[in-house]
């Protein structure tokens, strides 16, 4: 692969960021390390031609969750650089669970026969290398069903395009937004006894 050097850079950044989260005791530095780690993961997704997942990773985790996290820290912490101290017991427990997960993932990765899988993948869909997943997904969302996917069956024309959920979710979000605004809004006047219910 021609992307080999890029892969190593992103992989090192991902792991380095993750280690940084664990080692650092300062919550703001931890958040920054997490940004590095998650952002590089998005880079890895882009290298794998999964541009939609990569973009989602950037938007949701780096752009959304982490900014929220940092705002949360800024709004709640008493000092700007709050320290987190962990007891030895917690370190031990965390390390045990982490290593267990690592070994599970490592064994799974070793078990997979990558060569045959790669050959099968290129055989099944030669165009997969070209990326463009976002476009295919986008087309399904506006109603063009994709072939050779989940839900293909003959004689019904029932190939699934996701126009309906894509559109109806906007009504859902509108309704939920109204609900959130209602709950957050202060009541302008006190309800009188006849309408305000009991008590």
């Amino acid at each position, binding site marked *: 692969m021609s992307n080999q050097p890029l892969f190593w850079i992103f992989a090192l950044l991902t792991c380095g960021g993750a280690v940084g989260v664990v080692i650092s005791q300062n919550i703001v530095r931890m958040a920054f390390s997490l940004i590095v780690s998650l952002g590089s993961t998005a880079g890895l997704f882009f290298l794998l031609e999964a541009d939609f997942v990569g973009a989602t990773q950037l938007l949701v985790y780096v752009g959304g969750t982490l900014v929220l996290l940092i705002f949360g820290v800024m709004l709640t912490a008493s000092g700007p650089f709050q320290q987190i101290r962990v007891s030895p017991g917690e370190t031990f427990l965390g390390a045990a669970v982490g290593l267990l997960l690592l070994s599970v993932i490592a064994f799974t990765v070793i078990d997979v026969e990558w060569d045959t899988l790669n050959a099968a993948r290129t055989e099944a*869909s030669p*165009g997969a290398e070209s990326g463009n997943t976002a*476009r*295919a997904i986008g*087309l399904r969302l*506006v*109603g*063009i*069903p*994709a*072939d*050779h996917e*989940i*839900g293909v*069956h003959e004689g*019904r*024309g*029932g*190939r*699934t*395009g*996701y*126009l*309906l*959920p894509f559109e*109806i*979710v906007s*009504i*859902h979000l*509108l*309704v*939920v937004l*109204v*609900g*959130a*605004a*209602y*709950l957050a809004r202060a*009541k*302008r*006047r006190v*309800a009188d*006894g*006849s*309408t*305000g*219910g*009991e*008590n």
Partner: protein
Amino acid sequence: MLANTSIPVFEQLFNELTKTLPGDVFAFLPELVLCGTVIALLLGRLLGTDRWIPGHWTALVGTLIAFGFSFNAALGGIELSSVEATAEISRSELFSGLLINDGMTIFFRLFLLLFLVLVIALTVLSGIPDNEDGPDFYTLLLGATIGMMLMVSANHLLILFLAVEMASVPSYVLVGFLKGRRASSEAALKYVVYGAGAAGVMLYGTSLVAGLLGTAEIDQIAGKLSELTLTGATLRTILLGVMMILVGLAFKLSLVPFHFWCPDAFEGAPAEVGGFLSVASKGAAFALLIRVAGQLAGPAAVPPEIPVPGLEGLAISLAIGLGLVGAASSTFGNLAAYSQTNIKRLLAYSTIAHAGYMLLGVSAMILARHAGDTDLARDCVSGVLFYLTVYLFMNLGAFAIVALVRNQIYSEEIADYKGLAKQAPLLCVAMAVCLFSLVGLPPLGGFVAKFFVLAPVWKAGDIHPAMWLLVGVALLNTVFSLFYYLRILVAMFIDDRPTGQPVAKPDSVDKLYVALVSIPILLLGASPLIGKLSQAAEDAARDLFL
């Protein structure tokens, strides 16, 4: 697969959209009208017209138009079926197989919209959202109903999840609608936390099922199930996925052991919202459960003589498992209702018990379907539909009276209901009708409904004897439940009203509404209307198993 130049793509898009979309959108009109009503409510607030046209009128008119459209669709379905006399005609898929439009969709749409009209009317009478909050309240109510209407027509696991969320999230806000009251906020928080957990579990379950079966379309599940060799890891995974989906639905149905949110949410929520959730949310969840569970029983094409090894066990354990959950729900609901002093909490436990009775019908349906007895399976479904319709009136009636009485005496404690019959005789008589019907006493709708649900379950005992036991438990529960319902009536009719209690003087409109809701209970107990409704329920169930 897709051309790289843009013109063929747009051509394809255009072709796809013009081919099926107009018809699909026409069949989707009732939901679209509700969406439009939501927007009209918001615009009304923006432009300030809600001062002249209050929110409840906008909501009521929108719902009535949607009801008209679905009623029209139902009439079309009846004409079609009488001419063609085949079930397959009236069954069609919308939006490339995401939704299904069959008898059951039509039935539940009418059910939900009729109920929505009644609930909006009740909120106008009881005045729980004042003019300022009205648009918000009705937006949430309509939004939740759109979600429920999607639930009843879902034919895809993605829609299943989306619809359940669309129905749930506005409900969380509705439960906490009375801001600033501790009980209300606590109820909403509990509902949110449990609901989020159940939704996560259900999403995981749908991903397991869709991944293993290679299809996300609900009506393909049965066929794909029979193609799998259900042994070892595959069986465990599919069982896990199915159970996780059922957890999500059981949460919506407030079945034991996923019922903890129910009494708290109902106690904290306004009685109107309690009534809405107890009927609409349950009805929609039952529709979804019937669709999913009917598929899990396996395909009808496989005759029972050639059992697919894993499928046999899956269907029977599912049926018996659901039956046991149903029996446990009705037993627990009834036992816990005894010690309640708050009437909304008591009614919450009573709804848990009633969900249990109806679940027996679903479990018998799986068994009958698995044994290849399609007629019996349809009887089970139509029994559940009949029960739900009667349940609509009796439960709404009970909650409506609680709401209207609350506006008079400012209390929802059973102790404060003492001697109410002398001050508000009509309300108390209507309450008696609702409660006796909830028990299932003979001349009332509740009795007929219980009979229609339990008779097919009894028949399914021929397939598996455990069903007889379940019917026995349900009948015992019916006797138990008499006592705690009677406690309310004893307080209302026999006890004297203590001096110094607020006097209840219901308006004539209140009385009219209560009479309107409770008269169908009488009619559905002893009049030709029974035949009409059971015919409609059978029509709705007919398309279900082809």
